[in-house]
């Protein structure tokens, strides 16, 4: 008599949490979807008359510019994370245990410190009176406008979301038998050749799920674009915030939020499905 036993009444234990999430997670999102179909009213914020105007208005508004910018930033961030993440993930997967543990600690701790604080560090480095500009001034050169442009935002995003790429990649690379690498090397492949022919193809599930996670996080970022991009680099997250708290266009903000939540959750669940499938194939199920 060992697990798993079929005992449906055990589901009762999951009930409190299921109810809690239904109230505090599902209901707010249903409310957003409902609001997104309500009619905007300048005096009462919204009236409960169904309309699709909030979605149709997005097509020819400033929204498209903002959306394209957000996607562009997300794409740059993802590509750079992949380029930097591969060497890092390989290193952590193959380094000695002690070193890997320290490396993981140094990777995870910044992830857990509030995004505000990491962004603050970049403000000190890149600001007008910041570290780099002070060095330039000391050498008699002109100060550069390093902040409040898209490059600054990409730097900030990569810095914060790199672990989202490295962790799934590392898990994927760890599953590759080191004997395959040695075989490739013994047959005359250079390190880079081996990396391209062995590691790259076999770690593809990790790469895909890392890319999806980073993209999803980057296109819904808020703090970094606001603090490092300023008013010029408006992204979708900022647009939602401004419409909600500043101009009170709640139906329109709800429509944008609905679209973004569909986009990001489908990206994340795809990432999850890919990881699951990879580990199932691994176990031969």
């Amino acid at each position, binding site marked *: 008599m060992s697990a798993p036993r079929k005992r449906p009444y055990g589901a009762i234990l999951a009930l409190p949490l299921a109810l809690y999430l239904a109230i505090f*997670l599902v209901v707010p999102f249903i409310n957003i979807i409902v609001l997104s179909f309500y009619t905007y009213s300048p005096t009462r914020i919204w009236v409960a008359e169904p309309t699709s105007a909030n979605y149709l208005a997005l097509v020819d508004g400033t929204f498209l510019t903002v959306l394209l910018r957000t996607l562009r930033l997300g794409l740059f961030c993802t590509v750079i994370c992949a380029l930097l993440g591969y060497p890092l993930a*390989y290193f952590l997967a193959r380094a000695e245990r002690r070193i890997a543990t320290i490396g993981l600690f*140094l990777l995870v*701790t910044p992830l857990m410190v509030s995004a505000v604080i990491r962004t603050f560090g970049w403000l*000190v480095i890149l600001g007008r009176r910041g570290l780099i500009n002070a060095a330039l001034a000391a050498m008699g050169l002109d100060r550069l406008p390093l902040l409040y442009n898209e490059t600054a935002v990409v730097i900030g995003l990569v810095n914060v979301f790199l672990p989202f790429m490295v962790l799934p990649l590392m898990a994927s690379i760890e599953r590759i038998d080191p004997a395959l*690498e040695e075989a490739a090397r013994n047959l005359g492949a250079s390190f880079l050749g081996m990396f391209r022919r062995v590691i790259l193809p076999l770690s593809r599930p990790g790469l895909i799920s890392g890319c999806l996670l980073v993209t*999803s996080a980057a296109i819904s970022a808020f703090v970094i674009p*606001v603090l490092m991009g300023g008013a010029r680099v408006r992204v979708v*997250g900022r647009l939602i915030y401004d419409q909600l708290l500043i101009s009170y266009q709640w139906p329109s903000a709800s429509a944008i939020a609905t679209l973004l939540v569909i986009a*990001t959750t489908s990206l994340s669940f795809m990432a999850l499905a890919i990881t699951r499938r990879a580990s199932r194939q691994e176990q031969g199920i």
Partner: protein
Amino acid sequence: MSRRLPVPLTAFVGLIYLLLLAPLAIVIAVSFGASATFDFPPTELTLKWYRAFFANGEFVSAFFKVSLVLGVAAAVTACALGIIAAIALVRFRFNGREALEAFFLAPLFIPEILFGAALYLIYARLGIKPSMTSLLLAHVVICVPFVIRNVMAGLIGLDPRLEEAAMSLGASRVQAFVKVALPLIRSSVLSGFIFAFIISFSDINLALFIAGPNSTTLPVFIFNLLLFEGDPSVAAASTLQIAIVGLLIFLVQRLFRPRTLV
């Protein structure tokens, strides 16, 4: 033959770490510097920004009366809900179990900024005023997945026959869990608790939308100061936050493998 990693790879990895950690290192360095203009490297060391931080009542209250309290309360609530849900998922088989697990982990995959917006709207619609409680209720949602993941991993690694043995010796199901299973998975529970605390403690996206004047958390306070160029007492408060989070992660790593994070 020992496998050695190529030197250029190691050097490149070192460079990435330098960039990754630079912002945090700078914040820490600035907090000890004497000049008010974020000079780096600091010309002389001082603790005056820490004194300035502790002298600022609003700042101290955001740190100790709001963020710390909220973090502990959210972690306790998330553990209470999460542990029994994890038992259901691991120890029982029922229809829709996998879907339920995905549902419990869903908050991980929903961007916090959108969840914050959704909460702002529902609270506004229902006329719920922003308070510590309304923020706490929201934080529990984003903390719960970390408890579920850690506790599930602990329970999966625990032989259910241990509990069965206790029950055959006369313990009730609840006694068997509390006296046998719980002590054995305490490190998983503790790391779930710690991660839950950190998630609440570091959260900015929810708090930006639904924190009120009496529930301004430390990250929101810092965010507002940064929008209007604060002084290095921001760095002092940030350094304290980094120290707390770093210490907790160090503790978790002793207990548990942090790679289950993503």
